[in-house]
């Protein structure tokens, strides 16, 4: 269960797939798959749900998708973009 870090720190525009770090002005550009994953994590979808959503749209092996989701999830936590919802 994740939520976007404080609104004072990050602005996430899922329409344009952009995350702006309000602390330093840097912005991260998300590709379509990354955008699906981040939206899914914030909307409290399970990893399997996100995986299904991606495999339904893209011709990518399930294992690869699963690994990508987990890898992206840890990157977002590491960068402080998402935090575990209490």
């Amino acid at each position, binding site marked *: 269960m994740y939520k976007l870090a404080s609104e004072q720190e990050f*602005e996430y525009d899922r329409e*344009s797939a952009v995350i702006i770090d309000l602390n330093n*002005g840097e*912005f991260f550009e998300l590709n379509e798959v990354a955008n699906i994953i981040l939206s899914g994590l914030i909307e409290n979808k399970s990893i399997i749900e996100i995986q299904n959503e991606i495999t339904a749209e893209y011709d990518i092996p399930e294992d690869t998708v699963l690994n990508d989701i987990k890898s992206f999830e840890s990157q977002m936590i590491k960068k402080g973009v998402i935090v575990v919802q209490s």
Partner: protein
Amino acid sequence: MNTIQRETIRYDIANFSINLKASASIHSQMQPFCYRINMKSEKPRLDIEIITDCEKDGSILLWAKIQEKKETFNRFELKAYNLFFDKEFDCYYFVGGNLLGKYDRFNEKAVWYINEEKFYARNIFHICILDILCLSSPKYESAFYHGAVVSLNSTGFMFIGNSGSGKSTITQKLSIQTPCKKICDDVFSIAFKDTLQLYPINSGNGYIKNSMNDFLNTSEYVKLYETSSKIYFLDNSPKPTNVQPKHVFLLDRKVNGDLDNTIIQEIKPDELIKLILSRQANVPSKFTKERYRLLKKFCSTISANLVVYSGDCNINSLYKRMCQISEG
């Protein structure tokens, strides 16, 4: 001998006005907001302090205080990406070359410590005025962008690109070789009302040198600083334009590539946001979110092309595209 000069310039931008007040204590010849400072012999250190404040009528008050200290000077280059946030002191710091700046976002107070051998008027203008305006203006539904503008039949065409991407050169060529009129070639402001309103910010613009003699012979402009290719000057009476901003050309100049090969590509609005973000200094402030919101609004209102070229940009291709857009 030190001199103290004070000057107030009022910029009418959209439905609000900004008073720019300078209070400067400097060593040698200085005109208000014309930072032609000869410091080669003394090599003092300047502390520039900019304080912004909001007046009762909603206008922003900015004033710059320049103080001289005897220190060794070195060249500096201001780079926005060198800005970092100090959580402990809740301040932003600039570090670039030999420049150290501190921006206190909550008190909207900024202090830059600059060591430089030669003072560049444009740099100071950007530091003292534009950076602060960029940070503060979104709360008044107005945003500043680094870019050039030409008009064709009252349609505004904006050129956005990184330094060296050819904004000045292309707008200059368009104004000479085609019926396009150059509006500005460095900074413009967009006021977000029912329609977008464009305001050229002429102070500190860099114009291609040889074309500027006529401008500089009038009393409306004051020459600030001169390099081998550009003259930076101040417009003493900034005015809004009746140019309707309609289209952005994002310039992507390739260092290596086929000469005379200019490709003009369509850009979708969501791609445009990212492309503009990557070509603007994204200095954070408490209005960063507002600035982003205005950028989205801007991108959803205008059309855009990516112009990829190497060598010289093909002005004819560009003008042809502009005619198509202008004619609707």
